[in-house]
């Protein structure tokens, strides 16, 4: 591959660089992975040992109790299903709404773009608050409706700005000129040229939206009361937070289940992360290949 060959070691300086790079990467890896490894082993170790610092590199007193508890809850499966649906449909809508808009805003000859950008950016900061939103959704029938997970979040302005920046900088103007010799057709340019060359940014935005949908628990919390519609995050948050119930107060208060419950709580706490993030983690490597294919702009040029 062209780029990589350019980086291959050629001089002793390069070799030294490679060594330093390797060391730096190893440290980064350790610092990042260790806590995650810790989470994984803590999810199957005896909670008391975890809390007193006796679990460092290997699990102790292995028990799958946490996972048993999580998967015994059949709401998990409904939750998974719902989340997958909302994420797929939601992300698809996001792409349809965001990318064309980002492209349009990236055209420098389009004068209204400044005002429009302000129109969008303003909403990142100022919002009417939860109650007006709730009333609006109620009035248009979005409450207790699966569409509430998809429609209100159709556009994320942050992602819009990033996509626009990419279109502005990564697509050379010559391409546009060449494509519009016979007359300006933005649709055709966008669909046939700009998009195919922007696989990197499309993947990134898709990933951002995907994760936003995947992690969304707030929508379900406030706007949905029917448990059949709830996504995974709500189910997990229920399990997780309810087991944290003891963390807040004194053990007394009429026998709040005290520390016996606490035993379960901690294992579940760690198990929950694994359960909720595993699917997304598995997805990312598939998207990564788009980053590398990149834009072969150099071959288009002259």
């Amino acid at each position, binding site marked *: 591959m*062209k*780029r990589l060959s350019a980086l*291959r070691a*050629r001089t002793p300086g390069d070799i030294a*660089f*490679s060594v330093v*790079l390797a060391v730096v*990467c190893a440290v980064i*890896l350790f*610092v*990042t992975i260790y*806590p995650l490894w*810790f*989470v994984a082993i803590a999810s199957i170790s005896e909670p008391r040992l975890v809390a007193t610092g*006796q679990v460092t590199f290997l699990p102790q007193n292995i028990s799958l109790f946490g996972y048993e508890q999580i998967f015994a809850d059949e709401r998990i499966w409904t939750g998974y299903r719902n989340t997958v649906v909302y994420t797929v449909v939601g992300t698809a809508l996001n792409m349809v*709404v965001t990318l*064309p*808009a980002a492209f349009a805003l990236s*055209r420098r*000859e*389009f004068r209204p*773009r400044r*005002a*429009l*950008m302000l*129109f969008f*950016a303003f*909403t990142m*900061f*100022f919002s*009417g*608050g939860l*109650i*007006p*939103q709730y*009333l*609006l959704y109620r009035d248009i029938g979005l409450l207790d409706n699966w569409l509430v997970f998809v429609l*209100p979040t*159709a*556009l994320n302005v942050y992602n819009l700005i*990033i996509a626009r920046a*990419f279109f502005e900088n990564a697509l050379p103007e010559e391409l546009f000129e060449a494509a*519009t*010799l016979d*007359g300006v057709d*933005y*649709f055709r340019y966008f669909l046939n040229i700009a998009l195919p060359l922007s696989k990197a*940014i499309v993947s*990134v935005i898709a990933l951002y939206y995907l994760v936003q949908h995947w992690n969304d628990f707030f929508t379900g919390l406030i706007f949905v009361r029917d448990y059949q519609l709830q996504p995974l995050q709500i189910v997990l948050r229920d399990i*997780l937070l309810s087991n944290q119930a003891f963390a807040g107060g004194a053990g007394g208060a009429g026998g709040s289940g005290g520390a016996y419950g606490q035993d379960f709580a*901690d294992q579940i706490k760690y198990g*929950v*992360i694994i359960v*909720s993030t595993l699917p997304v983690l598995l997805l990312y*490597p598939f998207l990564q290949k788009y980053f*590398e*294919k*990149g*834009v072969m702009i*150099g071959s288009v040029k002259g």
Partner: protein
Amino acid sequence: MTLVRERTGLAAAPAGRGTPPGRAERVRRHLSRYWQLWVLLLPAIGFTAVFAYVPMYGIQLAFREFDFQAGLTGGRWVGLKYFEIFFDSPMFGTVLRNTLTISIATLVVGFLAPIALALVINQIVNATRKRFMQTATYLPHFISIVVVVGMLQVLLNPSNGTVTRLFSGFGLDLDLLGDPDLFVPVYVISEVWQHCGWNSIIYLAALASVDTQLYEAARIDGANRLHLIRHVDIPALVPTMIILFILTMGGVLSTGFEKIWLMQNALNLPVSEVIATYTYRIGILGNQFSLGTAIGLFNTLINFLFLVVTNWLAKKFADTSLW
């Protein structure tokens, strides 16, 4: 040629024509030229108008007494009363100072770290190892805050935490959870640890679009890999960096609520009480919508101000900006 004129938007008016085109005429011309762009924008504008602008009337709650019987907009107008309550509170100065300290520290470190990480990862030659590094570093992003703080409690435990032991191995006896001076570093570093990998994705995507011919050319001119980073990679990232910097400046008064709330204890309280936690405490006994909205509005106003200023500066000095 038509193309140039199209793009610069100059009307094809022969010299000497009488009156300049009227308003309606200009709009029609604009639409005929750019209608396609408007179509592309329509969904975005539509969704924003409905879901963001329609509910915006709720902001006035910051200036009204919340009276449930009278409805959301029916309460008595009290102007800046709740803002004054907030500003006059003895906690205001402390809370603002803490928020700014934590925020700005997180902002600065949190802005630079992903760039550095992206540059490092980009240098990895072996595709598989590169992919592995990328995946590994963004994993922490998905861990819920409750768990992150729980992990901090265990790993930074004064007597038997792994990290504490590591530090004392180097001769540093640190009370990582109790020492108020260490609260901000611990907070910032754990934030960066959690989100650095994820935030570097956008930079990696930008680096992936760097023209490979540039590398070749630079190599031929005798550049070593550090030079490549300095003269090829970083310039390629600058436009993205600027946009992201403007956006992060828009978060200057927004610290996350939950993480700080979970990390607070009696020892670090002087530095850990921020606007978000303070608002939660006041609201906790309930239903202080007006005060909560007022504080929230104050928060976002300052954020927006910073964004506008940074945007203006970027436009002036770097020719890249949001609008």
